[in-house]
Each structure stands twice: as structure tokens, then as C-alpha cells.
């Protein structure tokens, strides 16, 4: 058993021990059972044609209501979700017995169930989406439940990424749908079909919604995540495949059919992708040997069938879809639990070594046999009704009826083979000697056979009493999907020989023949094409993920290179390029007047001195020269302040310059030897960027002085300084009174700076263990 490492029980209370032995399943199943009964009690109301709605305001500022609707479609789904959920909860109690993390398991399972119920009942696009995402997250937690295993974690992540990405597309699609329809209430969308289709947003809405639905319901080309999701414990697989998660996409298509359906784009896309998925799933199923994998691919095929039927549409298509939905949920839930029982009891899921279990596991065998008959579409099981309806609708399809029917027949033949492989082969004795299995099998406890038995029995009962049980709810479900009332007549056996009845007979005959004689060939073919059709998609996805990561590493290394000089270059370069773009495209540069005012001799001289200082810095071969050059620039600027009548600035600038030169000289001899490490070209490049930055600022300044000068504050300061603030020097008054808090802030800066210097000099800690060891002295920030 996979969880064995996590199951070593230590001393526990008797109650805990009982719970861990499986008792918990019985108790917990009361919750979904009572909810199932509650919703079942609504059946008479709903089948009489009533639709129940309830709505609470949730986030009115975003137009989101917490709105729910119970109609034929949502009630069917809710009953499947909760009914099968009840059996899964019970089943899991037995299957997971002894698991120490059983509490978490049930937490996730109930979260999943709740999300699914919310999803199918939602009557607001955003409410629906909230639950949609919750199913993705809870299934992530469930698929990755055996978290110690890498394969389990990666399957969970794969499912999450694919359904998550689809979810994001869906979000955009639903928002657009809300915009186009001018409402977020789902039940109002049908009446705005014309508005939506003609809005110009229809194409993007359709594409985005379909991506969402196809990823969730594992349609081609996203089908590959579903077999991977088998990493989940079997009760989860049973639930995920039969009634929940993957049916969410189908549900969404059905729900939105009144809003988006009835266009060629909708019909063709759904029919084509559905048919491809149906055929591909069935083809891949029969070449597997792992029980769960066979079942997983048949789920893919069935989901394809459902999508195709919605695409075919019309009364026939939709009724067939409703019936087949129930057919599939019942038999698939049953068969997964059967697979779980076999695995649990024998320790193997390999159909090539399992045989003759009929004797040891009679109840499980009985359930499996019934479910497989339904899957194969034999009367009097419900599956037969489903298959008849499918053929009726494919023959009736509005385009490519012959092709679609052929694909459907072929797929169904393969499904019969698969049904035999799952339900006949492991149980009946094979001619050869019996392989020994890791464990000696016997019938599992009641909690584990009750579920499959109930579901198998329902397949039979629903088939036998198809008119009484199925017809009312299918009628209402079809009405909800079609957006108009319909009259549905279901029957178990045809009253006359029709084309689709003949097709059924043909399918069954060919199916049995294929099971008996063509299996080796099918297995061979499947193996030959496995690389492309099975692994190809998974590998493609893995490559996509890996390439994204490689790209991320590459671009991050390129940008976050670790070199400060490169950061500075990019920063200045970015400012210069965007600001220049603004200046060149938005500003009127002709306003600049260069030689308006005459240039005095001393001004010219000062400018030349500053330029000489700059040249000196650039050509400097020692630090002392560089500092002298910088000092020259600084004192030159002091002179400019002097010429333009700012004596206080002269004083300040003079002190600052003197101090900086002195400080520089003081630390000069503590520094390493001056060397030129940069390359000629990089210096040239830096020079160009710096020059452009200077040019930009010059242009901006010239433009500024070219415009008219607004001085709204000056008169006030001149006036109020002496009269109100009692100061003769306006500048001083501004600094300490009008704008005193600026000065206070700057003094704080100085205070903190001195504190910082003190700390830098005194506080030297060794790097804490494992902390920040990554950067080395070459300036490389390692990734």
C-alpha cells in the first residue's frame, strides 16, 4: 500500500482507533446523505417544471451576487455529486483505514464536495467561478495527497496548472460574457442570446470559455492531465472521474448552452473536439494494463462523448447527453471503487496478472459485472438507453452525421473491450495458471463493497424503470440546457427496428468479437503509438514548464546581473529613453531660445572652468586628480550661484565642496590602488548614456526658462516674512518657519545618518548560519 509509511499508528485512544479503522466513514457520510435526501425531496417540485432561485447580495460594488438556482440540470448534478459523494465518503473510511492523515483527507474531500455543489447550483457567473477555482484547489490537495511521493506532487501540480490556466481563461471569458450580456445572472443569459452572439465579443468569449471547459473536462488537447490525476487515492479518483471535477467542464457547457450555443462555431468546435477526445480516450484505454489507467482513459472518452453531444445539440443531443451523464457517473463511480477493492485486496492493479477473483470477491464481482454491462451498453441496463440515444443523435447531427456516427460506433466498440478488461478479466479464470498477487485476496469490508453495489444496482434499476425514474428529471434537465420546454419520451427497448437499434446490435457484436480476438492487436497498436499519443502530450507539457523555467532563469540572470554599474546604466538609460520620447514627441522644442540673453565674459570663463574640471575627472589617472577635478566643478557651480545673486547658496555650496574634497582626501589613502578595470567600449557606452542624460536635462531646463514664469507664492513670502514671521531674511524664514518641517525632516536625516555611521563602525556581526551567504565579492548575486 502506498501510504504505508505514513500509517504506523502509535498509541491512540479507542475512539481514534475506531475512527482510523474506517468507522469515521460511516459517521461522516451522514452529512452528504442528509443533503442528498434534502435535494431528493425537491425532485417533485423540480420535475413539475418549477425552478427555484435564491439570491443574496454579496459584493454589490462588483455586481456579484451569491445566487443559486435549482432546475433540472443543477438538481441532476447535485444529486450525483452528493449521492456518489456519500458512497465515496463511506468507501474512503474503509479504503483509507489506518491513515494518520485521514482528518485532512476528509477535510479536502468535503471542501471538494462543497465546491462542486456550489458550482453546479450557482446562478451568478462570478459565484460559479469562485466555486470552479475551489474545485481546482481542493483537487490539487487531493491528487497530491500522498505528498511524500514526487510523482504524486508533480501530477497534482500538472492538474493544477492546466485547470488553473484554463480557469484564468474562463475568468476572462465570464467577465466578457457579463459585459456582453449586461448581466452576471446565469438564468438571464438565455434570453440575451442574440445580444451576446451579435456583440462582437462572441468569438473571444467562446474561445476563452471553451479553454476553461476543455481543460477542466480533459478534452483534447488537454486530456493528458486526467490519467496523471490517478496519483490520488482511489476514492478520490472514483469521485473525480464520476461525478465531480471533470464533469464541471461539461456542466459549464450545458449551463451556458442557452447563452452561447446554437451557432455553427459552437456546434462544430464542440462536436469535433468531443469526437476526437472520445476516440482518442477509447483507443488509449484498451492498450493499458493498469486498471485505474484503463478507467481513466475511458473517462476521457466519455467526457468527449458528452461534449460532442452538447455540440450536436438539439433535443436529441441534449437528452442523450443528460442520460449518458447519469449512465457514466453510475458505472464509473462503481468501477473505480471496484478497482480500488482489487488493489486493496490483492496489492495489484495489473490486469495482465489478475484473474479468477470471482470466487474470493463475489459481491465486488457482481457490482463490476453490472457496471460493465452498463458501460458496454447492454439491455436492460441504463447504458443501453444511453447508447441508443447517442446513436439517435449522431445520425441526426446537423453536419457530418456519417463521420460522427462512425467515430461513435468505433469508440463504443473499444469501450466494450475496455469494460471486459476491467470487469471480466480480473474476475474470471483465465486458461493459464493463476499468477500470485502480493496479497491473498478476499472480500473487503461492507463499507467498501456497499458503494459499488449500490451504484451497480442503480444502473439496473434506472434502466428498468427508465420512464418512471429518469424521464421526469431528464425532461427538466434538457429543458434547462435548451432554454425551452421539451417533451421527452424515454424507453428501454425500441418498439420498432430503427437504424440506431441496428447500430447498437452491431456495436455489441463487434465489441464482443474484438474483446475475444482483437485485444493483442489493439494492445500492440496502442503501444506503438504510445510515444506520440500518450507520452507526447505529457512530455510536451513538461517541456513547456521546463522551458519557461529556463527562460525565467536566463532573463533574470541577464537583468539581475549582480553588477551595480550595469544597474546604474540601465536605470539612467531607461529614464533618458522614455523621457526623451516624451520630450521629442510631446514638447515644442522650437520654444527653446539659446542665445537670447548675452553671455558675459566671466560666465563663459566659469563654464569653461567647469568643463575643464569634468575633462580632468574623465582623464584622471589617480584619485587625487579626480577629486581635484570634481572640486573644480563644484567651485565653478558656486561661482554661478554667485553671479545670479544667491549668496546663501554660495556659502552652502562652498562649505559642502570644501568639506567633500577634504573628506575625500582623508579617506584616499585607505583605499586600494586606483586601476582602470572597465573596457574602452564600455566607457564609451557609459559616456554616451551620461552625455544623453546631460543633454536631456539641459533641454528640459532650457524649455523651462523659455516659458513664462509663474510666481504665485513670491509676493506672499516677501510680504509675510517680516510682518507675520518676524524675520528679515526671506530665505531663512522659509527654511525655519514657512517650511520649517522640511528642515526638521532633514535634520532627522542627519541624525539617523550619524547613528548609521556609528553602527557601521561598531556593529559587526558574523553572518548568521545559512543566511545571505550567496553573494560573493565579485559582485555576483547568485541565483
Amino acid at each position: 500500500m502506498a501510504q504505508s509509511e505514513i500509517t504506523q499508528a502509535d498509541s491512540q485512544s479507542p475512539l481514534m482507533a475506531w475512527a482510523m479503522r474506517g468507522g469515521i466513514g460511516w459517521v461522516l457520510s451522514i452529512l452528504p446523505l442528509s443533503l442528498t435526501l434534502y435535494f431528493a425531496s425537491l425532485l417533485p417540485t423540480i420535475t413539475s417544471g418549477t425552478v427555484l432561485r435564491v439570491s443574496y447580495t454579496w459584493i454589490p460594488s462588483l455586481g456579484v451576487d451569491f445566487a443559486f438556482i435549482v432546475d433540472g440540470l443543477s438538481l441532476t448534478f447535485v444529486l450525483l455529486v452528493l449521492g456518489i459523494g456519500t458512497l465515496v465518503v463511506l468507501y474512503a473510511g474503509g479504503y483509507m483505514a489506518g491513515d494518520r492523515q485521514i482528518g485532512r483527507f476528509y477535510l479536502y474531500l468535503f471542501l471538494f464536495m462543497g465546491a462542486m455543489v456550489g458550482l453546479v447550483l450557482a446562478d451568478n457567473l462570478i459565484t460559479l467561478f469562485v466555486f470552479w477555482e475551489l474545485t481546482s484547489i481542493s483537487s490539487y490537495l487531493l491528487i497530491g495527497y500522498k505528498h511524500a511521493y514526487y510523482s504524486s506532487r508533480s501530477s497534482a501540480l500538472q492538474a493544477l496548472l492546466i485547470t488553473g490556466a484554463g480557469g484564468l481563461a474562463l475568468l476572462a471569458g465570464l467577465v466578457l460574457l457579463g459585459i456582453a450580456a449586461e448581466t452576471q445572472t446565469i438564468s438571464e443569459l438565455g434570453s440575451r442570446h442574440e445580444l451576446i452572439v451579435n456583440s462582437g465579443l462572441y468569438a473571444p468569449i467562446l474561445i476563452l470559455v471553451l479553454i476553461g471547459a476543455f481543460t477542466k473536462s480533459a478534452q483534447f488537447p488537454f486530456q493528458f492531465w486526467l490519467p496523471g490525476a490517478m496519483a490520488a487515492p482511489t476514492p478520490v479518483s472514483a469521485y473525480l472521474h464520476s461525478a465531480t471535477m471533470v464533469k464541471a467542464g461539461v456542466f459549464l457547457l450545458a449551463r451556458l448552452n442557452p447563452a452561447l450555443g446554437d451557432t455553427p462555431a459552437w456546434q462544430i468546435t464542440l462536436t469535433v473536439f468531443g469526437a476526437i477526445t472520445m476516440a482518442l480516450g477509447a483507443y488509449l484505454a484498451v492498450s493499458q494494463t493498469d486498471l485505474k489507467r484503463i478507467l481513466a482513459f475511458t473517462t476521457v472518452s466519455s467526457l468527449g462523448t458528452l461534449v460532442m453531444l452538447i455540440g450536436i445539440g438539439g433535443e436529441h443531443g441534449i437528452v442523450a447527453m443528460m442520460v449518458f451523464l447519469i449512465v457514466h457517473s453510475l458505472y464509473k463511480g462503481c468501477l473505480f471503487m471496484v478497482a480500488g477493492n482489487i488493489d486493496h485486496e490483492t496489492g495489484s492493479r495489473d490486469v495482465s496478472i489478475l484473474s479468477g477473483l470471482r470466487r474470493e470477491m463475489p459481491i465486488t464481482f457482481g457490482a463490476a459485472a453490472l457496471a460493465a454491462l452498463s458501460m458496454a451498453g447492454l439491455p436492460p441496463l441504463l447504458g443501453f438507453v444511453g447508447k441508443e440515444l447517442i446513436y439517435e443523435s449522431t445520425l441526426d447531427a446537423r453536419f457530418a452525421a456519417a463521420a460522427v456516427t462512425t467515430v461513435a460506433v468505433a469508440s463504443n466498440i473499444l469501450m466494450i473491450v475496455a469494460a471486459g478488461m476491467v470487469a471480466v478479466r480480473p474476475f474470471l479464470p483465465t486458461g493459464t495458471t493463476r499468477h500470485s498477487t502480493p496479497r491473498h485476496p478476499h472480500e473487503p469490508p461492507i463499507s467498501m463493497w456497499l458503494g459499488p453495489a449500490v451504484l451497480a444496482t442503480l444502473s439496473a434499476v434506472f434502466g428498468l424503470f427508465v420512464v418512471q425514474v429518469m424521464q421526469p428529471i431528464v425532461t427538466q434537465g434538457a429543458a434547462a440546457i435548451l432554454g425551452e420546454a421539451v417533451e421527452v419520451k424515454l424507453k428501454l427497448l425500441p418498439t420498432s427496428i430503427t437504424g440506431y437499434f441496428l447500430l447498437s446490435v452491431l456495436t455489441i457484436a463487434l465489441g464482443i468479437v474484438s474483446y475475444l480476438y482483437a485485444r493483442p492487436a489493439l494492445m500492440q497498436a496502442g503501444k506503438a503509438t504510445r510515444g506520440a499519443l500518450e507520452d507526447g502530450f505529457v512530455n510536451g507539457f513538461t517541456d513547456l514548464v521546463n522551458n519557461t523555467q529556463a527562460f525565467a532563469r536566463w532573463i533574470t540572470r541577464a537583468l539581475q546581473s549582480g553588477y551595480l554599474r550595469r544597474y546604474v546604466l540601465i536605470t539612467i538609460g531607461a529614464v533618458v529613453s522614455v523621457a526623451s520620447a516624451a520630450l521629442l514627441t510631446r514638447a515644442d522644442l522650437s520654444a527653446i531660445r539659446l542665445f537670447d540673453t548675452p553671455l558675459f565674459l566671466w560666465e563663459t570663463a566659469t563654464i569653461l572652468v567647469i568643463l575643464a574640471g569634468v575633462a580632468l575627472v574623465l582623464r584622471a589617472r589617480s584619485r587625487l586628480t579626480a577629486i581635484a577635478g570634481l572640486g573644480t566643478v563644484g567651485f565653478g557651480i558656486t561661482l554661478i550661484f554667485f553671479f545670479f545673486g544667491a549668496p546663501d547658496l554660495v556659502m552652502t555650496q562652498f562649505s559642502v565642496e570644501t568639506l567633500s574634497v577634504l573628506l575625500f582626501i582623508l579617506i584616499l589613502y585607505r583605499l586600494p590602488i586606483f586601476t582602470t578595470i572597465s573596457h574602452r567600449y564600455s566607457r564609451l557606452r557609459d559616456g554616451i548614456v551620461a552625455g544623453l542624460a546631460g543633454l536631456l536635462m539641459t533641454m528640459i531646463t532650457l524649455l523651462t526658462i523659455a516659458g513664462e514664469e509663474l510666481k504665485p507664492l513670491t509676493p506672499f513670502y516677501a510680504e509675510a516674512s517680516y510682518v507675520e514671521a518676524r524675520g528679515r531674511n526671506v530665505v531663512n524664514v522659509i527654511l525655519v518657519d514657512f517650511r520649517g518641517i522640511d528642515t526638521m525632516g532633514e535634520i532627522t536625516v542627519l541624525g539617523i545618518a550619524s547613528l548609521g555611521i556609528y553602527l557601521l563602525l561598531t556593529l559587526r556581526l558574523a553572518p548568521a548560519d545559512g543566511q545571505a551567504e550567496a553573494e560573493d565579492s565579485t559582485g555576483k548575486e547568485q541565483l
Partner: protein
Amino acid sequence: MNLVVFLPLFVPFFTGIIGLLLWGKPQAQRVVSLLGGIGLTLVGANLLLTVIQQGIQVTYIGDWVAPFGITLVADLLSAIMVFVAGMMTLSTVIYAIVTLDAPRERNGFHVLLHFMLFGVIGAFLTGDIFNLFVWYEVMLISSFVLLVMGGERAQLEGGIKYVTLNLIASALFLSAVGILYGVVGTLNMAHLAILVPQVEQQGLITTLAILFLFAFGIKSALFPVFFWLPASYHTPPIAVTVIFSALLTKVGIYSLIRVFTLIFTTDTAFTHTVLLIIAALTMILGVLGAVAQFEMRRLLSFHIISQIGYLLMGLALFTPLSLAATVFFLVHVIFAKSALFLVGGIIHHMTGTYDLKKLGGFYRVSPVLSVLFFIPAMSLAGIPPLSGFWAKYALVRAGLENNQPWIVAAALGVSILTMFSMTKIWAEAFLKEADDGKLRENVPALQSIPAALRLPMLAPIIVLAVLMVVMGVAAEPFFALSLQTAEQLLSRTEYVQAVLGVQL
């Protein structure tokens, strides 16, 4: 003097001063720091409530009326930011008291923290663009000292990059303010709002807007000027990283929102298109950086950048809904990011490493820590019904209503990569066991932390996680307030009226 506005500025300053006076008395400093954090939260709450009930609050420093003196203005955006800053300060103080090493705590961590907050709150409250520069300087110098205190080699290297690139921002900011003053002749932001549209040379104003965009953009860690953040945020102790991640870049984005709603709205066709492009690139390159990391703090640091892109997207789209989304997102991301860093800090506290390759097993050993990581991680990835979802939804909706499908595509694509890198931490540090499916040995449980430390370490995260759930499940009051904030920002009349007493 309107004390309601003044007190949030005064409290951290006063706390810092008292802390200085208590130098060498770490216990007393702790008490003062804690009281300062509580005090700031309370006066912040008071400010927010007052602004909600009575509208924009204004105070003239030294009673020099606008536009002549310096005005403190608290509109909804400012008040929200001040309140959140108070909460984050309190969380950081509590967390630092239990986790920070003794030398750093003894040598003025608390003092510097509150001085930094002095700058942060000043930036949120000032109504004067030069005064904003001063607050930026207060913030820069105190954050620099916080970043390098301890003098570890990596800290110093990160610190040099931090301070160099931020000084470029300062120089840019100062030049831009100088030129703006030269053109318009005023520094009061409300006054600028009136005068800037009257300037003849609108092209010059647009160019200045770009200079401001980069001055604040460097602070906000936008593409392509974010380098200082990933170069430095992983080097200081986690308590410092938490408060940095919560507030520093957010002051930058706050300033961008302020000037690009109040002052530079005359050429949105150019400026806000630039903003939109930068938003897309910031979110994409930020998240790619995160995808490339395998060290928790570095990974989370890159996510800060990515999320800033979302915040900018709301501003760039420039509609009530998109701005409301930005406001909501701002608060959400502060909570989510802080909680994630705090969880990372606890893991580091127990194991001594942030390296995902060396971690594992916490999912089995510590359900509490798992939940406390999972909630903010999923919230950051935008999973409903957590706070991040509504932020994302509102942005997507605003983008699509505004007919900007590409930015929406970028936002959604980044969202899946965010999910990817969050699940990376989840899978590696929490789910993963030993390679062969065997259980890891010696995974420390939370119980290994002494009980007296455990609760104060967990309490801030618990509060933040609960807030993220509440903001998601009961989003209405939060989003309604965000919408109100957005409308106040976009209409501008209330702001100008409150400051200058005239109509716009």
C-alpha cells in the same frame, strides 16, 4: 492644528526620540516600541474613521495656510495607508521582539524602525511635493541603516546597491521638483492640480511627469529600475525584510497614484500608456524572477516586484473600478506578502535556512504553519474566495471594460506563474519528504519553539491570514471603501477644496 492628522506623524517620531533617550536599555526600548506600534495603529484607525465620516482632513503646519506653508492632507487613500502602516509596524515590532538577535535589537533597531515610519507616514500625509522629498530622505536613510546594521558582508553589498540606486531616484526626484517649481511656481499639490493644466508648455509637463514616474518608479521597483530590491531584500533579518516589503515600495506606488491622479492628468494618452506598458513588463519580469528562485526570501522578493505591476496596472487603466482595484490590491498585497515573509522567518528560525532544496516535511509535522502559509500563498495567487481574487477580478474586469485585452492577458498569465512559484514553496518546504518517499527525519515542529515565543511569532500571521479571508469572503465593505477612494482620487475636487478652499 488638526491633531487627528498630526498625531500619526508625531507618534513614530516621538517613539523614536524616547527610544534614543533609552539607549542601552533594551527592555525599556521594547516597551516603548510596542507602545509606539499600538499608538500608531490607534491614531491611524482614528484618522481613517474620521476621514470616512467627515471627509478629507487637513492641517497647516505652523498655521501657514496653503499653498504658502506645508499642508498635511489625509484623504481616504492616505488614511488607509497610514492605518495599514500602523498595523504592519505593530506586527513587525512584536515579531522582532521575539526573533531579532540581541545585538541588533540593543543597537537601535526599534529606534530606526520608528524613524523610518516617521518618514513613511510623512510621505502618506504630506500635501506638498517638496516635503514629500524630505520624507523620502528620512525613509531612505533609516531604511539604509536598518538594512546594513550588523555589517554582514552580504548586507553591506546589498546596502551599497540599495543606496546607490535610491540616490539616483532622489536626484531625479529633486531635479523634477525643482523644474516643476520653476515652471509652475508652487509646491503644494492641490495648488499644482489647479495650475499645471494652465501651463502653456504641456509637453514639458509630460516630460516632467516621466521624470516623476521614474523617481517614484525606482522606489516602487518598477521594470526596468527594480534592481535594488532583489539585490538587497534577502540580506537583513526577516523582521526588517517584512516591514520593507510591506511599506517601502508601497510608498513609491502611493506617490505614483498621488501625482498621476492629482497633478499629471493632462496627457494621459501618453503618460498612462507608458504606465500600462511598464505595468505589464514589471509584473511579467517580476514573476519570472520568482520562478527562477529556489531561496524563499529571494523568491518572495521578486514577487513584490510582480505585484507592483498589478498595482500600477490599476492606476494606468485610470477608471474608478481599476483604481479601486489598485487600492484594494495594495492593502491585500501588504497583508499577503508580510504573512509569507513571516512564515519564511519562522521556518528559518527553526531550520536555519531559506533554501527550498534543504527544506521539507512541514506539511506533515506542522498543520498550523501549513495553513498559515497556504492562505496567504493562495491569496497572492488570486484564488477565491480570498482577498487576492477580488483584487485580480476587479483589475481583469476593468481591463476588459476598457478594451485592453493585452494587459489582461499579461495579468492572467502572470497569475498562473504566481501560482506556480507559490506551489513551489508549498511542494518543496511543506509537502516534500525524503527523495525516496521515506519520511524526512528531524523536521522541527512548532512545538520546538518555546511557548512564550511561539504565540507572539504566530499572532501577526494569524491576524493577517484572518484578514485575508475576511477581505475575501466579506469583501463588500472593503471594496466599497476602495471604490469611494478611487472616486475621490479621480474627481480631485474634494481634495483641492479641502486644502485650498476653492473649486477646481
